[in-house]
Structures are given as structure tokens and as C-alpha cells.
């Protein structure tokens, strides 16, 4: 009787295992799996199903510019973006995505609603300093205003990513990547911009952006 019971469990597991559908597939090498399904079944694990990641290791993708997501997934796929975190996490995820899946992924996350940090948790002085830099840059260092490319509210524009609402820690880290490595060649323009910016200025901009929407 007991053997029969265990046999039934095994048999049912095998049967269920056979009943696979692409709607909830986690197969990253199947062109028939839609970008939306991959976003929900795989990407959501780090980036959140609504694109608002919890851990600042991973960027928020909600409301991100579609063009920007497409370009990043393609440079992950081609290994042209090689900053350590990008290669460690994203090369494998992107390696067999089709252009159609990449477009669908970008559309999915673009349509999600960005949820910035709550203002009351932020350091008001830091945020104020960051806002000043965001809007005016640092003229003494010839650092241009972030708003000039990323939009008055940091919402981004086409290939310029949305940065409003992003995790402060993530922004800090990526500015470091732009400044100190050549791991993101498509962002070479940022290397020049971040060259003279100080760590405290970086923290201020990041703090401001994390609470802006």
C-alpha cells in the first residue's frame, strides 16, 4: 500500500512534469516563450515582477525607456557591456534572447509603474544638494547638468535612461563603473561627465534621484 502511494506520487510528478506550457516557462533558449513570460518567470526574481527591484544590487526597470532596455540587453548578449555585475548576472540571461523577446521585455518593463523611495526616509540636505547638481551640474568642474540629457525630471529620453526613482546604491555603483572602468563602452560619454565628480557629489545625486519621480 505504501509503495503504491509513493508510486502514485512519483507518477503524478512525472505526469505534471510532462504537461509543460510556455506560459510559465523559465527556458531562456526557447524563442516561443514570450518576453512577458520571461519577465515574470525569470527577470522578476531580481528586478521585481513590476520592475521595482527590492535589493539595490539590481536596478529598477519599471518605466524605463524601452530603447534603453533594448540596447542594454543587446550589449549584454554581445558581451559589449562587461562591467563585473553585468557580466556575472546578465550575460547568461541574455545570451540566447531573440530580438523579438528583447523588444517584448522592454515593452513589459516600460509599462510598469516606477515606485521611488519615500522622501521621508531620505537625508534632506543630501537630497537638496543632489537636486542642485542634477539641475545645474557642477560648473566649477565642467560637469554638466544631469537634466540636460536625462530630462527635467530624470525620466530619460530614448537611449538616455530614466534615472528618477532608481536605487541610490545602484546609481552610485554605476557612476563608479562609468568613471573607473571601460566596462560600458556605449556609455563613454558618462566617463567624461563623471571624471571630476567627487564621491560626496555622487552620493548626493543618487540620494536625490532615489526619491524623485
Amino acid at each position: 500500500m505504501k509503495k503504491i502511494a509513493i508510486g502514485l506520487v512519483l507518477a503524478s510528478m512525472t505526469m505534471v512534469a510532462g504537461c509543460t506550457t510556455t506560459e510559465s516557462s523559465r527556458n531562456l533558449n526557447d524563442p516561443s516563450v514570450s518576453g512577458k513570460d520571461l519577465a515574470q518567470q525569470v527577470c522578476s526574481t531580481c528586478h521585481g515582477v513590476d520592475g521595482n527591484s527590492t535589493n539595490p544590487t539590481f536596478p529598477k526597470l519599471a518605466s524605463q525607456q524601452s530603447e534603453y532596455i533594448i540596447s542594454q540587453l543587446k550589449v549584454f548578449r554581445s558581451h559589449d557591456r562587461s562591467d563585473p555585475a553585468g557580466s556575472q548576472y546578465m550575460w547568461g540571461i541574455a545570451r540566447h534572447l531573440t530580438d523579438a523577446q528583447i523588444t517584448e521585455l522592454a515593452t513589459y518593463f516600460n509599462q510598469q509603474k516606477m515606485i521611488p523611495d519615500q522622501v521621508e526616509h531620505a537625508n534632506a540636505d543630501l537630497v537638496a544638494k543632489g537636486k542642485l547638481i542634477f539641475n545645474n551640474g557642477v560648473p566649477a568642474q565642467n560637469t554638466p547638468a544631469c537634466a540636460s540629457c536625462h530630462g527635467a525630471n530624470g525620466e530619460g529620453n530614448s537611449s538616455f535612461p530614466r534615472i528618477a526613482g532608481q536605487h541610490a546604491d545602484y546609481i552610485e555603483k554605476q557612476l563608479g563603473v562609468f568613471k573607473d572602468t571601460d566596462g560600458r563602452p556605449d556609455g563613454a560619454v558618462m566617463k567624461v561627465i563623471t571624471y571630476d565628480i567627487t564621491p560626496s557629489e555622487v552620493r548626493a545625486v543618487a540620494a536625490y534621484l532615489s526619491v524623485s519621480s
Partner: protein
Amino acid sequence: MKANWAGGVFLKQMGVRLANAGYAFRRLQSGRFITYLITIMTGLISIDAHAVPAFARQTGQNCLACHAGGQFPELTPYGRMFKLTAYSIGERTVPLAMMAVMGSTNVKGPAATGPGHTATDGTLTFNTGSLFVAGKITDKSGVFAQLTYDNYGGDTGASGHVASDNADFRYADRLISNGSDLIYGFTLNNNPGVQDVWGSTPAWGYGVVPISTGTGVATNPIFHGALGSQVVGAGAYLYWNKMVYAEVSAYRTGDGVFSFLTQGNGGQTVIKGENPYLRLALTREWGAHNVMLGYSYFDVRQYPDPTLPATDHYRDNTIDLQYQYLLDPHTFTATLTRTNETVDYGAPGSLQDTVNAFRAKASYTYKAQYGTSLSYFNVSNSSNNAASLSGNMFASQTGTEGWTPEIYWMPVQNIRTGVQYTMFSKVDGVSTGAVDTYNGKASGANQVVFYIWGAY
């Protein structure tokens, strides 16, 4: 015995090994040691850095995506989801991987006075090698199974043999939308707790290599490894909104069609019928932090003598806690586990006994390369049947306590080398005076372990 990264820590058996590991590290000549080290490290580092074990090949990701700071066995939230979704993220590849561990151990006290102290003589010794079958099977099912060659047979020194190690077959589906996230799945495994994803169950919690520290010969709850690769269990689980995990499993003797899961592990432990394992965990993530508070219950009836009808009845209640901080370059993981066991014996006239085990471990890794950990253990039991009974029943009052600091280095993601030192403050109930086994004091059981771990 087993490799911990993939295998459970079979503490009772490991304890015997550790008690036996009394050899003269101090006699190890430094020149010889350095030569060994350089030779081995050179060989291991020559492995292609992109050549990583099976799961990493399947996802194309670095080990640190799933393992906190790249160190095993601690899983990241992503690694937990990878396991809960039946190892099915990624693409199907050749599901094979290998692992090897070399190590050297020294016990402070005089080896000759310890029980069975023959050990391996202070040389750096090939300890275990494992073959993994690990990977995606279908879109929603996968396997993690391990076959381990143990090159060291304890009392008799090197006497290699192959045995089945931990195994976990899974099916899982994920129903997810912006409003809800529900994973449901099934597991078939051979070690109670090995299916858990938080690393605070005894199967995964403590020690990272087969020669790692343990509690010596102290009596541990049965949940702490005694049934590893001896039983087979099937279970169903749910994980809802990354908040609530619930599992119901049942374990039975791993014989008949399931004997492949228990091969090579000595005499078959026989348990009566299906024995329940229940698990509940509450989890929360915020920012770089995540925490789990859990409870598990394991109820098992074991035949101390399979030719007789009487069974010993073990009921293990375990509470556990895990906290983790993950933000490059820092990784911190801490776990607490406390098990209380009640034992009712089948032998007529015997009294009830209890066993308590408390374990804690904290680890910190910097840049996924340099790390340190500190473990604490405290195991004790009653001895209501000490005077007249033996076998599974407790011969004496015990209380074993100690600390294990460790440092480790991972030059590339599939190599790790480290040193552990275990300091016993109490062995078999006493700290000083009557511990003749260890030269009159508990610290005589102290030991140092050096290991090199590699996987491909």
C-alpha cells in the same frame, strides 16, 4: 563521507570522523606543505575561469548569482528561487559537474588516547570527489543529485568507496502576476531538510567541506543528519508572495526502488512507515536585507533492531532564523538553529530522553573572494537510560560546546581554500578534569582543518 557544499552534514558520522582525525599537523614540514599548496593551486587555477559547475552553465551566470558572495552553500534570494522553481531557470545543458576536496587536519590532544585515532597523518590528503547530476529536465522540473567518492574511511585510514549523496528531484510551477506570486512544487529527496532553501536546516547549515568541524561524538537530534542517504521522502510545498513558505513531506526507508538513493552508505537504517516532516517559514526582503524565521517538525519512528517490532520514536521541533545582507562588495549571512528532540524508546521500561542542539553561524565575504565565518555549537542530552541501555539510547550525560572561526579565499569562483579552527569548551559534559580522552581537558579535542575545494 560527504561533501558539504552539495551534501548534507551527517553530523553523527562526521563526528566520528572528527574524533578520529588526530594526526600530527605540527609534524607537517612547512616546505613540503608549501610545495603541495603551490602545486595544487597552480593546477586548479589553470581551470578555465568560465568553466563552472552545471547550474552556472545552465544559466550562464556566475556562482555569486545564486550563492551569497559566491560562497557555498548559502543561497541568495535568487538562488532560493532557482531551487524552488525546480532548478529550471536557464536552458538545458549537459547536467554534469564535478567537485574535489583536499584537506589536512590536526587534533591538539594526543591522538593515541582518542577513540580510533588513526586518521591521515598530517599530510594534505585527497578527501572526497563528487559527481553531480544537476540541471533542468523539463521547463518545470529539474534535479540535483550527487554521487560521492570518499577517499578516507575513518579508523582504517584511506579506504575509498562510492556512495549516493544528497539528491533532490523537483517539479515546480510559478503563478505570477503584478498582484500575486505563488510557487507550488514537489520534491523527492533522500535527506530530511536537504530540500530547504535557507541553509539553516542541519542538512546545509554548518561546515563546508567533508572534514569540516562538527560536534565530535556528541549525540545529536536525529534531524541533524542521521537519516541522510538512508531514507526517501516526497513532499509538496508552496511559497506565496515571497512571504510564506509551507511544506509537507513524508519519509520512509530508502529501500526497494529507491535504494539507488541510499547505496553505499553502510547498513540500511529502517524507519517505520511514512514519517512526517513539516516546514513553515516567513520571509521578508527590504533593501539589501532579507530575513527568514522558520519552524520545522520531524516525527520519525526508527527500528533500533529491524528484526524486532519495537520502534524508538523521535520528535524534533526546530526553530531557525536567517538574516542576510547582500550589496556588493559586502555579503553577510547569519543563521541560528535550535532543535529540541524528545525520544520515547520502544524497549520496555525505558524512560523518555531529550536532546537539545543549538547552532549559530555568521559569515562575511568581501568582493566574493575573501571571507570569514564564525560558528558556535552546543549539544546536550538527558541520560535517563544511561545505566542500563545502549544502542540508540544514551550512554551518558553529554554536553558538547565549542566555537569554530574560519577564514577562506576564493581566487576564482570555483575554487575555495580555507582554514578552520574548532575550540571545544566542553566535551561529553565536562570542561576540565575528567576528560581522559583528550588529555584531561576539553581543549584537547581542538582541531585545525585546512582545505582546498574545487568544482568544475
